[in-house]
């Protein structure tokens, strides 16, 4: 008897994807609230950010007792100055836009990695680890060969995708065959990847000649993403073809999910594994396949980090992008177009946040607070809907349906 017939291929709960998961990831909602809720979440987070700025401006707070007018103008200037710097630093100049795009490219690829997992009902927390393995694979290819750019760069990317895919497929197969939950296995594989990278960077295979610390050789120029504005000879305009690659990959994932039979199967498994099994789909294969694709995307995110910016590997070069990607995929409602938009936003917050930190006395940590707030509002859509009195398309939850339905 082949495995695909066995009924225990459905998730352990046996009830399909939960309503909470669907709400959280934006799977089962109409497009109107899929756009509206994230936009309102961003606005709300920025407004709460104002409150944070006001209550951390000690000088202004002291003035409220003696001179409320001065306090008000001081508060106003720190809020407006902060948000102005944030905007100027992300979109105010070619250099700012370039930095936004530098940040956006790996975020988009990593966000797609998480989003495609959501689409298939899987919670891929492992993008960080998949980035590390993919990035290491890219370094291996980038250092080992001397080839022309049109061969070398694609080869490095393919290597990264394969490395990430293998790393990603493992939790998918474990989930399908044994029911081991991918949240646990991907988190554990992140830790393994993190330490494996340190180990590999000190091995003779990777370690730069003459170094004792864990750092790799630099990848060949022919394996790097070319800079888009290289002709300006302005070292501060760093944006590379990586951003174009990321957008093309997003388009490809959109095509895969919505225009192909494999994408139809991914989405069917994501919405209802029992229904997918009924329809004759091979749930074991699909869980493995979707995690392999997610891993490949994570690997490409790691490759972009190396081939666009760093050019060499050091411990933890993934820089938490794989975790930001979870927030990003949620904000993008697990849709490739949404992920691109959210990736640009997060890239802008990173780039603008640095300028804000330099030009005002606000800490860049404010950006993390705003990002976290966005996720809170996305994860609790009822809150946003209550604040703004939004009606959504889904039928009202009928209170008479009891437990277990």
């Amino acid at each position, binding site marked *: *008897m*082949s495995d*695909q*017939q*066995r*009924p*225990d291929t459905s998730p352990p709960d*046996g*009830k*399909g994807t939960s309503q909470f998961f*669907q709400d959280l990831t934006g*799977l*089962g909602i109409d497009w109107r609230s899929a756009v509206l809720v994230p936009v309102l979440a961003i606005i709300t987070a920025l407004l709460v950010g104002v409150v944070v700025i006001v209550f951390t401006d000690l000088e202004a707070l002291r003035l409220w007792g003696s001179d409320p007018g001065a306090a008000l103008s001081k508060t106003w200037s720190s809020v407006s100055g902060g948000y102005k710097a944030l905007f100027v630093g992300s979109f105010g100049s070619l250099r700012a836009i370039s930095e936004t795009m530098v940040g956006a490219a790996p975020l988009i690829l990593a966000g797609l990695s998480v989003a495609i997992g959501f689409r298939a009902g899987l919670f891929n927390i492992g993008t960080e680890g998949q980035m590390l393995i993919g990035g290491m694979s890219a370094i291996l290819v980038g250092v080992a060969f001397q080839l022309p750019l049109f061969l070398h760069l694609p080869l490095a990317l393919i290597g990264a995708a394969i490395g990430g895919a293998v790393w990603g497929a493992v939790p998918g197969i474990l989930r399908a065959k044994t029911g081991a939950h991918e949240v646990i296995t991907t988190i554990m594989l992140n830790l393994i990847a993190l330490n494996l990278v340190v180990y590999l960077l000190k091995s003779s295979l990777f370690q730069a000649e003459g170094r004792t610390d864990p750092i790799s050789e630099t990848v060949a120029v022919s394996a790097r993403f070319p800079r888009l504005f290289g002709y300006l000879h302005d070292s501060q305009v760093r944006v590379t073809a990586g951003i174009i690659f990321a957008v093309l990959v997003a388009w490809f994932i959109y095509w895969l999910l919505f*225009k*192909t*039979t*494999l*994408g*139809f199967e991914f*989405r*069917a498994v994501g*919405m*209802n594994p*029992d*229904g*997918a*099994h*009924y*329809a*004759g*789909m091979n749930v074991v294969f699909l869980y493995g396949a979707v995690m392999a694709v997610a891993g490949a995307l994570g690997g490409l995110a790691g490759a972009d980090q190396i081939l666009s910016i760093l050019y060499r590997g050091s411990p933890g070069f993934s820089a938490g992008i794989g975790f930001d990607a979870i927030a990003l995929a949620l904000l993008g409602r697990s849709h490739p177009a949404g992920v691109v938009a959210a990736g640009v936003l997060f890239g802008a917050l990173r780039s603008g946040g640095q300028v804000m930190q330099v030009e005002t006395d606000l800490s860049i940590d404010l950006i993390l607070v705003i990002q976290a707030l966005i996720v809170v509002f996305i994860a609790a859509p009822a809150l946003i809907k209550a604040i703004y009195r939004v*009606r959504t398309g889904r*039928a*009202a939850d*009928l*209170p*008479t*349906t*009891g*437990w*277990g*339905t």
Partner: protein
Amino acid sequence: MELQLRGITKRFPGVLANDSVDLTARSGEILGLLGENGAGKTTLMNILYGLYTADEGQIIIDGQERHFEGPGDAIEAGIGMVHQHFMLVPVFTVTENVVLGVEPTNFAGIMDMKEAAREVHEISSKYGLEVDPEAITEDIPVGIQQRVEIIKVLFREAEFLVFDEPTAVLTPQEVEEFFGIIRGLRDAGKAIIFITHKLKEVLKISDRIAVLRDGKVVGHTTPAETTQEALAEMMVGRPVDLLVAKDVASPKEVVLRVDDVFVTDTRDQITVKGLSLEVKAGEIVGIAGIQGNGQTELVEMLTGMRPAASGAVYLNGEDVTDEGPRGIHSRGVAHIPEDRQRRGLVMNFTITENIVLNTYYDPPYSKGIVMDWDAAAAAAAKLVELFDVRTPSISIPANSLSGGNQQKVIVAREFSRDVKLIIAAQPTRGLDVGSIEYIHGRIVRARDAGVAILIVSTELDEVMALSDRLLVMFDGKIVADLDPTQVSATDVGLYMAGATP
């Protein structure tokens, strides 16, 4: 005591769920509230129970107008609700479930379970609701669990008892016992509101009947003054054919042969125990049986979703025992699954996506790996028309359709393929009269076109009316092979219970 609803109106975006509804329930009387799914029965009862607030209208108890902010107020006013889906904690004892939320305490404020058990016992003996107060809820049969729900309501001193589709989960024998119980409650002076869409039951049990259609009360009557046909017409708004019109079957070659199969359930218990049967082209074979006698596992095994532990299945002479779901349906088998929302549909998918759910991988719906959504949409548009699925669009998700229309989407998908065998489990469960009539008609037409049909249903009336040959399944085996025109429902009921008439 008297409960009056006056001019109750409730609007949801785009829907008028209740349109100035007037109803009266009195002590010592059973009011049958009849209506199709979506007629507004449940909305009305949610208003009565304080879960919704009416846009207009009044709730009057003994001449006094009441306002309910929530179920607490409704319970306070003496209204008790027994839901279709039980609200019991499976691991608690009967007593614990009954007192949940209103636990009796002793002078020190400590829960007094002895007192609680005593009160539960008192209520159960007073109203003839036999139940063991110490039993764990998940271990007792569904019929007894329903008694626990009733005791729960009585424990809260309800005078008005609302039952929402109470017989949907019961076996024929349990339904009889249940009717005995609510007659007892009525005679003890309670007011009963019995919500259902089953004509037979409402005629059998009610003192008065109110019929709801499209949110309006379209008629009041009593069982003495009306018939099933008249009620059905009131409920649906047009004459309905309640009998399944069909000619005598002319069975041909054997399509499905099942030979001594054993199947285990998800907990590895053997539930199908050496079952054999045959279904011929051009005949409808019905399997009657009480839920949980192996029917679910049998159907899952036949459709490739569950492996057989031993035995063999032949389709047109070919051994298909080890085939998976795709292998089965690509050989011309249609499967209408028991649980349409869990298996038959992907609820968040559009109608188009659901129409191609198990044929998407073949032309014309895809070429290679690329889907042709235009072809799929064209097929969906045609089938929605042909199978009378009531929907504003084929690109809305299945979960925004009514239950009857969801089932029609499945029927459309399964019947539109070139099939030789149809396996239908509970094909009309929970559907309204109009949809049932339609689906039965489709099944008979398929039979007349030479398709072999296997129907598994716990609705005895349905299998009796539809089948050309009636098998009774008990404890994992076929215990009787009957001619439905020559056997009484009572005798079939006895076979179903494992006895011999």
